[in-house]
């Protein structure tokens, strides 16, 4: 089996490959769904994921014109989420250009493949700054060096530089105008920022091209040697790599689940299919 010709790479799929080639193979080539538990505390894990998703939805609603007061009133049953929300309202949007696009997806092509990025928020000013905002709801703020090496940082900035012209007055966005901000709303909306440059874009392009070429040319997809990467991988029983990890050791912000967006927002129809 090989990767489908119309497969679109995302930061999530590339991060999977970077972490474990076998995981990439199972998930994207064999398309094997594997419902084993990710952590030992599945309900708490689920609660965190749902809180994160709801926070992202709140921001989207706010940016589409739903008044903050109406949204705040809906948070009476979740003090933690309400705290994130307050932090967002206080500092989340400060200093951002006025032209904003929430939950927007861009794509470019590289090495004969599509490369897709789904952004929480793009705030741009034609001729001025072009800022990528990614909301993080996890309990920890990782190091700059860790984030710098993540595929999300590499892919998001690169794709915006390549595919964001139509949001920037029709002009290509100079890499130097691009900045990526991770905003940790559970930590007082602390912001970790990553500037961009033409040189960095060149390096990123080379790295991404090499990864895509490696995947397309791969004859084998070996299991990672770093077993710590298996702790939260649902395939670990298939690979005989032990039990699920503890939630306290898990970084929810690195739980990539963006692959479903690849399908152009396909719906689920609520009308029954024909029963003939």
């Amino acid at each position, binding site marked *: 089996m090989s990767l489908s010709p*119309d497969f679109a790479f995302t930061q999530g799929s590339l991060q999977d490959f970077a972490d474990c080639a076998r995981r990439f193979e199972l998930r994207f080539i064999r398309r094997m*769904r594997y*419902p084993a538990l990710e952590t030992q505390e599945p309900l708490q894990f689920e609660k965190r994921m749902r809180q994160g998703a709801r926070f992202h*939805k709140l921001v989207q609603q706010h940016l589409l014109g739903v008044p903050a007061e109406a949204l705040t009133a809906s948070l009476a049953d979740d003090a933690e989420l309400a705290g994130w929300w307050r932090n967002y309202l206080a500092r989340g949007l400060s200093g951002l250009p006025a032209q904003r696009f929430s939950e927007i997806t861009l794509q470019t*092509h590289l090495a004969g493949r599509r490369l*897709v990025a789904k952004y929480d928020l793009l705030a741009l000013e034609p001729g001025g700054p072009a800022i990528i905002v990614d909301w993080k709801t996890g309990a920890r703020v990782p190091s700059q060096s860790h984030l710098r090496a993540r595929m999300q940082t590499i892919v998001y900035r690169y794709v915006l530089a390549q595919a964001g012209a139509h949001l920037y007055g029709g002009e290509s966005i100079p890499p130097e105008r691009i900045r990526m901000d991770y905003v940790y709303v559970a930590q007082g909306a602390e912001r970790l920022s990553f500037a961009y440059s033409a040189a960095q874009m060149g390096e990123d392009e080379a790295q991404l091209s090499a990864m895509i070429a490696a995947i397309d040319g791969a004859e084998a997809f070996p299991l990672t040697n770093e077993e710590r990467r298996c702790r939260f991988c649902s395939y670990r029983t298939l690979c005989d790599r032990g039990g699920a990890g503890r939630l306290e050791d898990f970084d929810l912000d690195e739980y990539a689940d963006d692959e479903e967006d690849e399908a152009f*927002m*396909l*719906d689920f129809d609520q009308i029954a299919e024909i029963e*003939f």
Partner: protein
Amino acid sequence: MADKARSPLTAAQSELVSAPLQGKIWLEGIAGGGKTSVGVARVVTLLGQGVPAESILIFVPQRSLAQPYIAALRGWTAHRGGQVSVQTIGSLSLQMVETFWFLISGDAGFKRPQDLPNFLSLELAQYFMTRAIEPLVDERDYFNSVRIDRPRLYSQIVDNMNKAALVGFPISEIGSRLKSALASGVEQAHIFDDAQTCALAFRKYCLTHNLLDFSLQLEVFRDHVWAVQPARAYLRGRFKHLIVDGVEEDNPASHFLIHELLQSCESALIIYDRDAGFRRFLGADPDSARRLRDKCERKATLDETFVMEEAVAALGAGLGAQLGLSVKAEWDVDPAPALITEAHRYHPAMVDWVARQVETLVRERDVSPNDIVIVAPFMSDALRFGLADRLTQRGIPLRSHRPSRALRDEPAARTLLTLARLAHPHWNMPPTDFDIVFALMAAIKDLDLVRAKLLTEMLYRNGRLLPFAEMRSTAMQERITFDIGERYDRLAAWIDRYIDRDRGDAIDIFFRRLYGALLSRAGFGFHDDVDAGNTAQNLVDSARGFRWSLDFMSRYDEQIDLSQDYVKMVDRGVIANFYLRDWIADAEEGLLIAPAYTFLLNNRAVDYQFWLNIGSEGWSRRLYQPLTHPYVLSRGWPPGILWTEEDERSLSRETLGRLLLALTRRCRKAVYLGYSELSESGYEQRGLLLETIQSMLRRAAREGPNV
């Protein structure tokens, strides 16, 4: 229809594709005329001219109809920019109601406007319908003269409410509309009154519990979300270019939205398939769609077929004309070469004949299996299995699709459900011996039926799996083998430990725990099995969706044992009945076996079609639905007018005529007719399709010079 024979585009198509960016085009024609090809090329052209992808909306009545667009967009790797949106009225209204919920929830009548909405899939709507109205039905002895099971009964009430929302009349009018057209006596009138009462009770329940079934979601979207400025501004500001395909298969609610967006968009291409509209029983309204024609400055037609050979065209037109459709029949072209048949007395002989004909086409005439479809009005499990078995033996790759399939019928799901009952003895729902045999076979690798039966007979006692050592006879243990016995013990011990620990997991968590800890491990049945993994994931998704839709209920002081309720509802066929991911499989290779309408809604052409059971009444007769009626509840049926036998007869003829036209327009070379005097059930069959074919052939022989 995206057809392999279409490229390159004709001059007429190219002219439409490159029409000026500003302007609205109405494009109609017969299926196979290249309309969807124009739509697909138009999207690519818009993007090529620098139109932002986010401003393009592809709007279709059903997601399968968007496949050519999605395939083209995915295949066009050169694109840099945003993404085109592909939506149905269901998906778009859901997103809009969810996004603008807190602006409209109070005005829309929800009792807790500050709580989140809970959108119900069809299966969950049926579940909540059961909760909301079953006490009423039992207490007042509703529907006592209707002889169909409760889930089907409730699904028709849901269907009535959906029709009201799609067509645009209040749900309080359902009963009166049905009564005035269909009630022939007091008993019938009572049934419709009961259906009305239940619909209103369910609506009240939904408003009280912040639940939105499809009908309420649509109503809220149309009457409330569309009325608030930020929502309207968002949609109008975003979607400047519309591509609407299959508009005749869509419903008045969709047509309302398209009409509204036409007022603000810069360009539009609306594609209308003439002589179609076969989703009428799902609310499709070609007449309502046609009103959009006047909103377009330019009208274009593509009526030249790119698909059918002459004889196939003559066949379709002849059949259509025979059934009274206003299509021009070319009596000077002989349809006979497009028609291949052989009469059989018994049904299995007909299935054998079909398999032999397919083999001949593939092996001797080099036809790709992708270019063959086998259709029937209904595709029973027996027929599907019979065909699949014979074709697989002949080495013919195939794929099969039913629009809905009960998850409980999937081996992996049945196994998980059986083991869940074992692990929850307090439910008092012990599995039967038969279920245990089946579950052991599926759960333990290389365990055959005989040994699974032996294990069950000797070790399944009082709802519990006893240890292998309890099997007293060493000879019997050796026959089963100690290797299998060891794995059996691991399974039994895992379940015992689960019971002892009294985990009380949510049922989806239980499924995941069992899957990860045991069934997916080496030596067990789901190990490295993609199908089992997919089915298990579908069951987990279904159970989790159930839990997420219900866990808020505790706020409303309704205590439910979610896990037990889930398993009960699966058993009753109320939930876990839909399996939408199977549509994805349609992209795969092989001969397609499907119900006729399912094939049509894939909107693709093939070289050869096999129509099976042509004597069946199912080709023309509506499903028995005593509580609902797709025509009486349509916009075109005037309230107060009686629906007569003659209306039913002419509907049957028109429905069959449209179906046959639609099928032949998706067929290039020939149609094989599968006929047996006796049906699958052993009854004589002489339905309208058979009669029509015979009449047409007689007429063609009489009137056609070449026949």
